[in-house]
């Protein structure tokens, strides 16, 4: 069977499984719809959280990013796992004790204000929508690359599947589908990584393989550093190269950590377990299952980096491996020869390896296609420069030097020469990662609108049946909006996803932590803090990305603050404003104090109580 047939088979089987699970876990009440009836076992919830958390970006792009960033790739590894420690120790058990449905719920009740609730709803909606659009796009991209289906059709198939299982089963359906999706995605990620580790180092565990000597001699990381120095790339293992200085690595990591802990679609997962002790265990299981992928990604990154350079450098057209030819068709990797008939990949001007992005290169305003570039380059070589054009300077100017980062995960199975069914499994894994995250986010959107906005503010008298209907309709509408963004992606989506973390770090995280650990912080200081954090962070991001503002150095930093890291400073600003204002405003009411006390009590064990 061909790769394409295997892919069709796996995608059809996995989608069938998701729908089957959805049918068995359909729900009839809002408790089932928003928090899965609070009956999810800790380990299953951990698995669902892990699938919820690991998006199309984690699955497809992260290993690629690490393989191009080297040490600095740690910002994602540390940021997206370290945040779980904050979540587990500072938020999850207390929010479960509080026991409502959503994050704005806690903010609204703790600060005793519908304005605070509204700020929470707006922040939750903003974060979730920017995030979900990227997932829908991811579904389309996987479909188009592996099944050669049009991206729009891919997105629509994804929409229909999510629509069915999210409206039917709500949180319950989403949770159990995510458990299945976790297994699909982790298997698809681990098998190629283990295979390439054995091939290069003889070690079956990629985590040991990364620190081990290569079969052909010399430690992998040392050799990678040597090759990098040789080709003019910055060192793979040495920290703080280029604009990734110590201050920026620190700030971005911190912003991603606090942002992770403040993301509403992760927090709500802890509302679905039976009790507080299960919430603690569930946080452990979540990070455990996440770490299986996050400890493997840096190994895959280094293996693929080494393998990629080693298998193309100095090769002639006949010598190039099969994976190269397969992926050259997609434009994710392309070779523009200078005429000597041998591939040269480097960080210098003589580099011949590029990737193609539609519309990035244009002549007199007309975009040039992949085939036009290839033909023109060939003509230029064949005619000794008389006709055609050498496209390398243009491609370099368009920042298209080097292969596309996504190729690291997508092409690893082929690099390791694995069977075609494993390559197909990667496609199913990418779809599982995108769909599981998308469905979790859609539920947050639905609960923010239908529960926080409709049931708590607009129509508190609404019947159970009506609430459930509103919840289902909102998911339906949200799927359509998300799909629309997936088909017509606004250019800013990829940047905005990273900034969603900054905004979550600067708004939710301080407000929730102070809400639990301080009895003194009242309504006004908390809202002022949240608005300061949101305002400061979004101003810096918008100004530096769209208005060309120079990054701030505060007079001490060598490189200005990366917009991805500004959330860490926004969080500090939030804390500061809240602390400074607190003494001037009234203490929380007796009711709110009782609420805080109740959250801080040990849970009476079910055996006794």
């Amino acid at each position: 069977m061909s790769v394409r047939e295997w892919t069709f088979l796996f995608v059809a089987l996995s989608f069938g499984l998701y729908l089957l699970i959805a049918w068995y876990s359909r729900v009839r009440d809002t408790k089932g719809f928003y928090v899965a009836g609070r009956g999810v076992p800790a380990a299953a919830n951990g698995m669902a959280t892990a699938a919820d958390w690991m998006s199309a970006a984690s699955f497809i792009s992260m290993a690629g990013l690490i393989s191009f960033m080297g040490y600095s790739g740690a910002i994602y590894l540390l940021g997206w796992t370290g945040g779980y420690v904050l979540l587990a120790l500072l938020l999850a058990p207390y929010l479960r004790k509080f026991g409502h449905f959503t994050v704005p719920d806690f903010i609204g009740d703790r600060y005793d204000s519908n304005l605070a609730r509204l700020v929470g709803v707006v922040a939750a909606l903003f974060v979730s929508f920017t995030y979900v659009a990227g997932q829908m796009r991811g579904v389309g991209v996987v479909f188009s690359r592996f099944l050669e289906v049009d991206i729009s059709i891919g997105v629509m198939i994804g929409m229909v599947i999510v629509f069915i299982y999210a409206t039917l089963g709500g949180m319950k359906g989403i949770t159990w589908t995510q458990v299945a999706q976790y297994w699909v995605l982790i298997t698809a990620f681990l098998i190629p990584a283990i295979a390439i580790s054995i091939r290069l180092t003889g070690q079956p565990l990629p985590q040991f393989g990364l620190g081990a000597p290569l079969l052909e001699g010399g430690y992998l990381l040392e050799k990678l550093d040597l090759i990098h120095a040789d080709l003019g790339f910055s060192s793979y293992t040495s920290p703080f190269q280029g604009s990734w200085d110590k201050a920026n690595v620190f700030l971005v990591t911190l912003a991603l950590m606090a942002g992770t802990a403040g993301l509403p679609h992760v927090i709500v997962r802890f509302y679905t377990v039976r009790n507080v002790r299960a919430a603690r265990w569930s946080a452990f299981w979540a990070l455990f299952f996440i770490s299986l992928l996050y400890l493997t990604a840096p190994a895959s990154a280094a293996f693929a980096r080494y393998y990629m350079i080693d298998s193309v450098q100095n090769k002639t057209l006949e010598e190039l491996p099969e994976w190269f030819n397969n992926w050259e068709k997609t434009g994710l990797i392309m070779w523009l020869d200078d005429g000597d008939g041998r591939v040269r990949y480097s960080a210098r001007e003589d580099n011949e390896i590029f990737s193609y992005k539609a519309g990035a290169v244009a002549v007199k305003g007309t975009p040039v296609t992949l085939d036009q570039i290839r033909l023109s380059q060939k003509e230029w070589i064949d005619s000794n420069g008389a006709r055609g054009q050498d496209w390398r300077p243009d491609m370099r100017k368009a920042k298209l030097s080097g292969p596309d980062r996504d190729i690291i995960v997508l092409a690893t199975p082929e690099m390791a020469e694995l069977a075609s069914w494993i390559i197909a499994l990667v496609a199913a894994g990418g779809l599982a990662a995108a769909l599981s995250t998308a469905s979790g986010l859609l539920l947050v959107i639905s609960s923010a609108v239908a529960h926080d906005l409709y049931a708590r503010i607009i129509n508190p008298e609404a019947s159970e049946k009506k609430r459930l209907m509103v919840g289902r309709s909102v998911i339906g509408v949200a799927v359509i909006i998300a799909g629309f963004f997936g088909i017509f992606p606004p250019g800013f989506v990829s940047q905005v996803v990273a900034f969603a973390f900054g905004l979550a770090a600067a708004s939710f995280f301080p407000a929730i932590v102070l809400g639990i650990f301080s009895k003194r912080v009242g309504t006004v200081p908390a809202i002022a803090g949240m608005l300061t954090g949101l305002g400061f962070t979004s101003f810096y991001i918008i100004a530096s990305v769209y208005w060309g503002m120079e990054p701030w150095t505060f007079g001490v930093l060598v490189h200005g603050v990366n917009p991805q890291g500004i959330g860490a400073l926004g969080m500090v600003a939030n804390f500061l404003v809240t602390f400074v204002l607190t003494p001037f405003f009234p203490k929380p009411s007796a009711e709110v104090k009782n609420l805080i006390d109740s959250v801080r009590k040990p849970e009476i064990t079910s055996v006794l109580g």
Partner: protein
Amino acid sequence: MPPKSIKIKQSLQRYWRHNIRITIALLFVWAIVGLGCGILFADFLNEFKVSGYPLGFWFAQQGAIIFFVLIILIYAVLLNSLDDRHSREIQDLTERDPEV
């Protein structure tokens, strides 16, 4: 002898203080391992090697994550047993004097 309600209150206060101590200690480890060894001292630690891994690089891409998982595991074990102890204590106090 103080009334039962005060004893319950004291038990709750002890519970909360103990909880805060555990949380702060574990967050300290989190900061040292993740932000310290992984980032702030990474260039220094990179001068040492454990098999093929420069140590700073290992903390940043492997070690810190392993520690994070262990931190949450220890937290869950400690806090759940603390919960058990205090909920039993409070249960005992209320059962002996149901009027509280």
